[in-house]
């Protein structure tokens, strides 16, 4: 979790402490965690703005704001998907030829306060009861985070597009359909500098499913209904009253594919 200092707009990372009685505390330091810094750099590079009131982006307005009595000096807590970033890196490094099909919640009800904040809930006699704080005893509560799919897609495609470093220069399985003997990167822009927006840069020796070295299709975000309308057999899931749970329900679920 991070918060921005309203004076400098510098991000601060939250550290959680537990004392001998099991009580939680929280304090903020400059960002020292390397995963948090790489997430913040990535987000800056992708043009995803931090969740700050636009009025505070001007220095003079900030100065006025910071002279107001009782004005908070730190922004609303923001829960950032650092674990998600490391999952995307694992996919890139260890599954170089994967095709990702990911489905999850794009929003959740009864979340605790904050940006991208999770829902913290306990099961009481079978029913889920949401609470208003993250500081609960580990093991007894479920903590669920919503996912911003547009940003996830940008992050994912960006992570996959990173040039290979020497330590992951291991061979990938060649496709029998591969039609290029020379590295594609060498002559990539020879005939045309045009690279379709919805295609990844082609990898050497790897043809797309069409057999042409045009690069894999980039992933898209689908709502649950859109995904099911595209890929499911909707006739066989239609109820007698005409409703179709695959299309009508799961309004807060999305797909990345």
């Amino acid at each position, binding site marked *: 979790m991070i918060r921005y200092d309203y004076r400098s707009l510098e991000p601060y990372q939250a550290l959680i402490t537990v004392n001998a009685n099991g009580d939680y505390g929280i304090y903020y330091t400059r960002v020292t965690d390397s995963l948090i810094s790489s997430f913040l750099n990535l987000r800056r590079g992708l043009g995803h703005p931090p969740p700050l009131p636009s009025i505070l982006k001007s220095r003079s307005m900030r100065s006025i704001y910071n002279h107001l009595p009782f004005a908070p000096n730190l922004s609303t807590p923001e829960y950032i998907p650092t674990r998600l970033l490391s*999952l995307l890196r694992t996919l890139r490094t260890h599954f*170089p*030829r994967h*095709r990702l099909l*990911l*489905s999850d*919640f794009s929003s959740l009800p009864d979340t605790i306060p904050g940006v991208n904040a999770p829902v913290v809930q306990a099961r009481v006699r079978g029913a889920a009861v949401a609470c208003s704080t993250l500081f609960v005893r580990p*093991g007894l*509560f479920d903590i669920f985070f*919503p996912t911003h799919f547009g940003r996830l897609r940008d992050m994912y495609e960006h992570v996959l597009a990173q040039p290979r470093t020497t330590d992951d220069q291991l061979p990938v399985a060649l496709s029998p359909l591969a039609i290029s003997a020379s590295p594609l990167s060498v002559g990539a822009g020879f005939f045309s500098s045009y690279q379709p927006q919805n295609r990844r840069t082609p990898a050497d020796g790897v043809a797309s499913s069409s057999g042409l070295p045009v690069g894999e299709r980039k992933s898209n975000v689908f709502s649950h209904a859109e995904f099911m309308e595209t890929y499911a057999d909707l006739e066989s899931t239609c109820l007698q009253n005409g409703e179709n749970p695959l299309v009508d329900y799961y309004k807060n679920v999305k797909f990345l594919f």
Partner: protein
Amino acid sequence: MDILDFIRGGYPEVYERTHYNIVEISGRLAKLQEKLLVPRHACVSITHKSIFHWDRREPAPCFFLAMEVIVGRPFPPHSLDPFTPRRTTLHTT
């Protein structure tokens, strides 16, 4: 189970070259899947491990399925790690 039943029923030639790998962080669920799936589908293998400790490079084309993985899972009692995910990869090369 249903995915593999579906492939076997409708696309036997694809099923023949399908490997289904499950990466399961929970020991209890890994055992359960072993018991339910393996007798019915010999192409399933279950790895009891966190994906963050995955150290093998998979060079073949595969589908990587992640359903309700990144939303997070119950906090295990011994850890404050909010993401304890389960994932599966499906190979049909």
